């Protein structure tokens, strides 16, 4: 039998038996709807929690050289930035107070932070250009405090060190604490006070922290202050595991119940239509093609039901403010169709094994 003919027969046969076809579609639609409004909500919550935990701010590791041992320097910064699990690494020095160079010491004082590393990861330039070593960019707050209308001119320290202003910036997380001040390009300075690292994923926090401490190798551990999200990473993994485990169990339960109902509907259908199946066997269809015929005629309504159930659940979840991840919804739909097809195989196989003579002979 040709596959196209098999598909044609299955479609016609399914269309002819409207009640079981409708029942299969309803069961699969219910499977998808229930799964997506329960497990889907859990998955959406899990995704939200994970997104928060994976935010750059939550992946920030900070190591401070509180006794100026000099282990945060150009070399250790470069090695740290090269680690595959490190998204961003910059070194930040001690801030110094500066004033508008044109107004002199009488002007308002603003903190200027010397920063080494890839400055494009620290702030977004909104005006002007990126600073070269020894140059400064200012935040909008700092611009106002300095009495500047445009990011031009220069700032100066009490000790007469001058830094030309070449642009204005907007700080990027997790460097928002620098957002109201001035940033100095300190690439020409040999060492810094703080190494601030954004780790690629929350799961990498603990091994990356160990690697960085090995790279820094501080002579006096007492002079090292570490601010790490490792506790948060543990919580994230535990929470993710719990939510995923709960979701999996619930999804399996829903699919299992759905499969039972689909199998019952298909079994009832093959028992009711035993003469139809017996005629097909007598006329020469093989057992394997008969099994395939019954299974395929379940897949059509199952796919329709999955589409209806998934779309309905998506609409309901969006309207209740808990949108489900689309890929998760698609996966549930596909899984429901596969489950329905698998559930149809045992009754289909049973139908194929029945003796057609029992069915066809007239007493």
């Amino acid at each position: 039998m040709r596959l196209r003919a098999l598909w044609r027969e299955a479609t016609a046969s399914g269309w002819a038996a409207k009640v079981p076809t409708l029942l299969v579609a309803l069961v699969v639609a219910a499977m998808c709807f229930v799964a997506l409004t329960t497990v889907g909500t859990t998955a959406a919550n899990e995704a939200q929690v994970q997104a928060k935990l994976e935010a750059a701010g939550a992946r920030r590791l900070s190591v401070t050289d509180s006794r100026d041992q000099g282990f945060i320097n150009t070399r250790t910064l470069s090695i740290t930035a090269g680690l595959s699990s490190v998204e961003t690494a910059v070194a930040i020095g001690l801030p110094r107070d500066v004033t508008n160079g044109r107004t002199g010491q009488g002007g308002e004082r603003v903190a200027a932070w010397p920063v080494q590393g890839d400055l494009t990861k620290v702030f977004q330039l909104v005006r002007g250009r990126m600073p070269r070593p020894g140059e400064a960019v200012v935040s909008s707050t700092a611009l106002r405090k300095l009495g500047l209308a445009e990011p031009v001119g220069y700032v100066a320290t009490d000790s007469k060190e001058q830094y030309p202003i070449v642009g204005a910036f907007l700080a990027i997380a997790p460097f928002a604490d620098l957002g109201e001040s001035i940033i100095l390009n300190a690439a020409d300075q040999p060492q810094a006070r703080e190494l601030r690292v954004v780790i690629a994923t929350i799961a990498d926090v603990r091994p990356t922290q160990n690697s960085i401490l090995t790279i820094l190798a501080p002579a006096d551990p007492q002079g090292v202050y570490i601010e790490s999200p490792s506790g948060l990473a543990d919580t994230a993994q535990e929470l993710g595991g719990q939510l995923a485990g709960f979701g999996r169990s619930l999804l399996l339960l829903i699919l299992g119940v759905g499969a039972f109902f689909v199998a019952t509907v298909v079994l009832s259908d093959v028992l009711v239509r035993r003469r139809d199946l017996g005629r097909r066997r007598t006329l020469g269809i093989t057992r394997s093609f008969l099994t395939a015929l019954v299974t395929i005629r379940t897949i059509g309504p199952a796919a329709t039901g999955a589409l209806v159930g998934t779309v309905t659940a998506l609409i309901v979840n969006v309207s209740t403010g808990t949108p489900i991840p689309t890929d998760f919804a698609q996966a549930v739909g596909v899984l429901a169709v596969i489950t329905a097809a698998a559930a149809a195989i045992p009754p289909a196989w049973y139908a194929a094994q029945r003796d057609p003579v029992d069915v066809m002979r007239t007493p």
Partner: protein
Amino acid sequence: MSPSVSPLAVTDLRFRYAKGGQELFDGLSHTFAPSALTALTGPSGRGKSTLLYVLGLLLTPSSGHVLVDGVNVADASDAERSRLRATRVGFVFQDSELDPARTIVDAVIEPGLYAGGRVVGLRGRAYELLEQFGLADRADHRPGQISGGQAQRVAVCRALLNDPAIVLADEPTGNLDRGNAERVLEALTSAAKDHAKTVVIATHDPFVLSYCDQRVEL
């Protein structure tokens, strides 16, 4: 197939439904003649329909051989039996057994699909047969829209679709009045004479027997 080999024969055939059950056929040996109607007849319970289903490869004999084109297929696999049923055997049931949801032409092409044919080609063949048996104007009707006699003639068309060597009919006129029975028997006679088929009919109806060329008494 050699010209001298009959499409259908049995040798030393015995059949028992279950252990301890009555044995049927008593070592029957018979060669069914091509281009002829052979009646399987005898009192009720002697196994007329059972023999028909053994010949149709739906039942396996307890012992003996069923020879299709000279080859013993009594012990063939289910897949091989299905293939032979689709390609070498046509069935006519007592109730026409047409799919009520399909049109007449789609009902006729059914065994052709199981034999691996393409729908378009099969439909052409089905229209030819329906034309030949006076049913062309019913091709797009549903089985519920035609008479019992017409349905049985459609069943004959279905049995002939794959140009099988053998046509098996189980009480094909059992539910028909005399006029319709005549037409169905003429169709089966035409199948045997005009299409050179080996037609075997299980019946105890003397009217049907009057159409048959040979009898196998059970």
